[in-house]
């Protein structure tokens, strides 16, 4: 009996010691955790789920190759519904219950809402897909791996003026964090290029009838219309625009790079200009394999392909950061994760190429402009 008691005491002592030891010295079998807070339900779930699937592919691939120095990556996924309040709950749980030192999230409203928690708790937040320019100013612990709206929206505005010769534009945008800031960027870039913004109008996120706003466009008669909304409302705005006899060329941003938009609009989608911030299947062989993998596993291409490419790359970045920590023999805290992000600085990523993190909390990537031609997206130009 006394021997057994000693054994128990030994085991308990060893356990307590292991818990007290810094991270790198703990058992090698312990997983390397990170969080992923995305919309799994709600109106944006079709995109959120596919982005989670993209990240899951990467985690599977990394772990199949032995993980990071023999330790597996563990991704903890929680639902945000793309809603700031639900996002706050999810991030609180990731930090206080799951104890992750880093998490990935998206959607501008959520990224902004959870930023104060990250800064207060000193846990690294990686924004992967939110495009609001304000994301760059959310604090020391919030970094984006995705170019903000000022990159692709500026490119599309300049292209419309300089290459397409458009002089007067209408800017229609959803009245939320996604639309408001990006619309300002478009207006500023188009005017800076020498054009005039003749209509600058926001619409209610719950609206289903846009005819009043579109009649303002008709009265102003611009030669280009830029719409900055969500994928759920962009097709409806374009459909109602065409039904009111407005035939102007339409541009939008990366949310519009989605086959559903062509399916819903048919011929009315012709000429639509969209942006992509990730290379396509013809630009990078890994992307071709990735799309094939989707087709084999899910029988389709993902919703919002470029976004899912960034989500694939996010766990790869996290793996690089963990590797840096292990080399430096530093514990996995949010502060050290931030050091790792800035320490690695240049990430060569499989799906989106090189990403350099800079102190301005922004990343620069080439912008791929595409247009709808004969019912399919075709490359139009590459900017940057």
């Amino acid at each position, binding site marked *: 009996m006394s021997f057994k008691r000693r054994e128990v005491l030994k085991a308990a002592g060893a356990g307590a010691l292991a818990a007290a030891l810094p991270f790198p010295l703990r058992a090698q079998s312990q997983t390397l955790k990170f969080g992923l807070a995305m919309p799994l*339900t*709600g*109106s944006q*779930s*079709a995109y959120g789920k596919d982005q989670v699937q993209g990240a899951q592919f990467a985690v599977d691939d990394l772990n199949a190759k032995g993980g990071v120095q023999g330790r597996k990556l563990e991704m903890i996924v929680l639902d945000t519904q793309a809603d700031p309040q639900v996002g706050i709950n999810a991030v609180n749980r990731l930090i206080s219950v799951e104890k992750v030192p880093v998490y990935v999230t998206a959607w501008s409203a959520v990224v902004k809402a959870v930023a104060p928690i990250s800064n207060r708790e000193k846990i690294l937040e990686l924004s992967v897909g939110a495009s609001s320019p304000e994301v760059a100013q959310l604090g020391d612990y919030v970094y984006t791996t995705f170019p903000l709206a000022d990159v692709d929206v500026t490119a599309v505005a300049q292209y419309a003026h300089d290459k397409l010769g458009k002089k007067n534009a209408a800017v229609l945008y959803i*009245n939320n964090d996604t639309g408001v800031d990006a619309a300002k960027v478009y207006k500023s870039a188009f005017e800076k290029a020498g054009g005039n913004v003749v209509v600058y*109008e*926001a*619409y*209610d996120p*719950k*609206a*289903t*009838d*846009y*005819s*009043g*706003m579109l*009649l*303002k466009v*008709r*009265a102003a008669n611009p030669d280009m219309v830029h719409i900055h909304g969500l994928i*759920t409302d962009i*097709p*409806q705005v374009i*459909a109602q625009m*065409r*039904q*009111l*006899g407005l035939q102007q060329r339409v541009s939008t941003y990366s949310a519009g790079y989605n086959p559903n938009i062509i*399916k*819903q*609009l*048919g*011929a*009315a989608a012709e000429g639509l200009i969209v942006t992509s911030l990730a290379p396509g299947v013809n630009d990078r062989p890994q992307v071709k394999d990735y799309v094939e993998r989707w087709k084999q596993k899910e029988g389709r291409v993902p919703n919002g392909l470029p976004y899912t490419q960034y989500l694939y790359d996010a766990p790869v970045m996290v793996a690089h950061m963990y590797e840096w920590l292990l080399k430096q023999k530093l514990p996995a805290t949010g502060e050290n994760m931030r050091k790792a992000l800035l320490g690695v600085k240049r990430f060569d990523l499989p799906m989106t190429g090189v990403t350099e993190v800079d102190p301005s909390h922004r990343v620069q990537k080439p912008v791929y402009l595409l247009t709808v031609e004969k019912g399919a997206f075709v490359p139009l130009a590459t900017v940057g």
Partner: protein
Amino acid sequence: MLDPAVLAQILWTGIATSSYMVLFTIAFALVLKVLKLWNFAQAGMMAIAFYAMYVAVNQWGLPTAAAIAFGLAATLAATLAYEVLGLRTLRARRSSSLLFFIFTLVCSEFTAYALTLVFGTEPVPLFPEILSPTRIVAGVAVSDWDLLAVGVTILLGAALALYLRFSRDGQFLLAVSDSAELAELYGIDARRAYLVALAAASVFACAGMYLYGSRTAVIPTAPLQLMLFAVIATLLGGMGSVLGGALAAVFLSLLQSYSVLVIPSQWQGLILYVFLFVTILFFPTGVRRLWNTSTRS
């Protein structure tokens, strides 16, 4: 913006887009008139109508007419179950108005959650393509959808008016709406009248969801949002007045449409809440009754 063609376009588009709101308002006002019930469960029936038609079109590949028939059958079946299993039980227990009200809300929320579990939360339109052919008539863009929406609304509204005015069942509905107890003394089956009113409301809800869903994408909780408009229009038109509610729905739609002439588009939604606030506070019996009172005096 004050170009006559633009004003005419706002008028036409406002009338066309008010169509489904008119249909939802008629459904709501009719049930309120006959059953004396604030029937928020109508949102659930609207959601059932939409998703039944959605399944018929997109999963079974049925033609439009068959899909509408299936949607209507599903809505009528749900309405029947709601009346027989729910409302009759509450009436038998002589439940309070508050309990009836809560029950209708619970039914609506329950249906929305159940449909969310089955269909998810991704917005889906009734048909894969949301665009309808358009022509320009005297400078005004008129789409096939506009014509269908206005035509269906006029047809169904006229049919209901004729039914209430000339049919025996319609007269019974009006009698029960005046006083159910008195009507029963004259041998009118009030329970049947309730069922008929709910069935008629289902027809309007189904037609409204067909029009709405063929123009825009729907999620299971969307009908509850649409119901708010119907409630405001019913309040404004005068509780118990189906025609008053329908006219108020057209008025509110046009007001929202014309408001873009003076305010930015994102403020359009606020107008409804302003009217709800003003109506509840200053015209609790509706503008129509106020007008009747002033003309009598």
